């Protein structure tokens, strides 16, 4: 892929990449959910792990490749700041030892200011950089951040950042989707053991008679919606504390009136 792109000539190709990537991610998830019971009885998880890894990786890369050319230079310059925010806050929270991750606030922030495509690129590159520098374990989860960026961007576009009670709802919904998408990764690649606290929960659900995928899904549903609810709310609070002049500089914010009508007449 050469970077021969000022949006218009390659618009259909970019769209095809994003749609194709999304279809692959969804197909991977559905296949794993539907075929999973028989996999476990024979206890050969080989195809399941491979398919989870390959399907999610290819899907995430396609979505990111289709998104990157739509971004302006200002957005590109903004993304490293957001990734740094994800990683620094995420690590801080991990050190404190809270049961949430808070590693996607930068993704949500960029998605709210510059749209879903920017959120997607921020999301995938957060996990790539985190994997390259500190912990390769987050790499297989890159697709989850892609989904978060996409959903946060569309939430902003749909006006869910206009009223204070809407971002928590959007966050919780995003968290449910994130939990479901990430469950096959923790089940088939990590066997449910992605950390001490989460591992104990997975064990508890299995002891209560859940399958492996069922247990990781339930574990995700316990922590992800809360985590994303907090992230979306904090991002909303931070953004509403910032001057309107700053927010209205972003074309995406002006075009979709992400924060409602601009207070000044200059729009």
């Amino acid at each position, binding site marked *: 892929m050469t970077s021969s792109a000022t949006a218009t000539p390659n618009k259909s190709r970019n769209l095809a990449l994003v749609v194709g990537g999304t279809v692959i991610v969804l197909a991977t998830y559905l296949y794993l959910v539907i075929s999973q019971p028989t996999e476990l009885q024979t206890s050969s998880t080989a195809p399941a792990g491979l398919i989870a890894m390959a399907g999610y990786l290819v899907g995430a890369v396609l979505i990111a490749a289709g998104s990157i050319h739509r971004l302006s230079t200002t957005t590109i310059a903004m993304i490293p700041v957001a990734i740094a925010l994800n990683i620094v806050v995420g690590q801080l929270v991990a050190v404190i030892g809270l049961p949430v991750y808070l590693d996607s606030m930068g993704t949500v922030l960029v998605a709210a200011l510059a749209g879903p495509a920017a959120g997607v690129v921020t999301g995938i590159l957060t996990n790539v950089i985190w994997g390259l520098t500190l912990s390769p374990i987050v790499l297989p989860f890159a697709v989850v951040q892609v989904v978060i960026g996409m959903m946060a961007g569309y939430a902003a576009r749909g006006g869910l950042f206009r009223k204070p009670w809407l971002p928590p709802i959007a966050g919780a919904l995003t968290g449910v989707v994130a939990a479901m998408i990430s469950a096959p990764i923790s089940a088939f690649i990590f066997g449910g053991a992605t950390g001490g606290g989460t591992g104990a929960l997975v064990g508890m659900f299995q*002891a209560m008679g859940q399958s492996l995928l069922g247990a990781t899904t339930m574990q995700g549903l316990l922590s992800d919606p809360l985590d994303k609810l907090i992230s979306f709310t904090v991002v909303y609070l931070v953004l509403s504390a910032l001057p309107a002049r700053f927010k209205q500089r972003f074309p995406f914010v002006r075009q979709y009136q992400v924060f409602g009508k601009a207070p000044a007449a200059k729009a």
Partner: protein
Amino acid sequence: MSSTLYVERPSAVHRLNPVTKLVALLCVIVVVFAIPQWWASGAVLLLVIVPAAVISGCGGALARIGGQILLPLLVVLVLVQGLTFPGGQTVLWRWGPLALTTEGLMFAATIGARIVVLVLSSVLLVLTTHPGDLMSALTEAGMSPRFAYIISSTLQLIPSFRARADSILLAQQARGLAVPRNPVRRLGVLMPLLAPLVLGMFTDVEERSTAMEARGFGSTAKRTTLTPVRDSRAQKVARWVMPAVALLAVVLQVGWGLL
């Protein structure tokens, strides 16, 4: 803490084209995930990763970092799957709802061996490849230079981001912000920290993007490289042979399953 794990060494593994190493990493992962036996991962570990680590001279660093990442994961994995694996039949020991089963332990061994290979091989790539080299090699191979910009720029940004966060926190404490000991309460500090941090960092962005535009960042012309990436015919061949081997492993495994 430094922002990358890269260790400078004059070794053959370091001199390889980063794309070759990346292809090798992906193929190793495909092979261990295609073959559902723990000995396959063990063989890859002994025949590929350990020799590569010894040649690269990063064996000590690899063992230390890999151990830090892997030990907690493996302990949790063996405990959780050994005791509560849903498909467990042969019970070795039982206590209430927990039952130590052979199937569970075998499952933990298979998954655990894979995770060991996954983590050690990617840490080895990171130890032996400078992120800048990896980016320029991937850009030469056809990746959009925008990805390379974002990744390299983030790696440089993280330390200054931390410094800025620290100074904001100190400034807020100077005007009376209490940082509580209780970790959950500490979350409340996030707001007075984040608002100035975001405003400051994002205000710089506009200036930076103007500077980038002025230097032709948005241009789509084909660029030449300042430091060409080392490559050789053998590596070009290897980049085709390794995926073929990985594909063969997948085909054989799926074929085996069908028979």
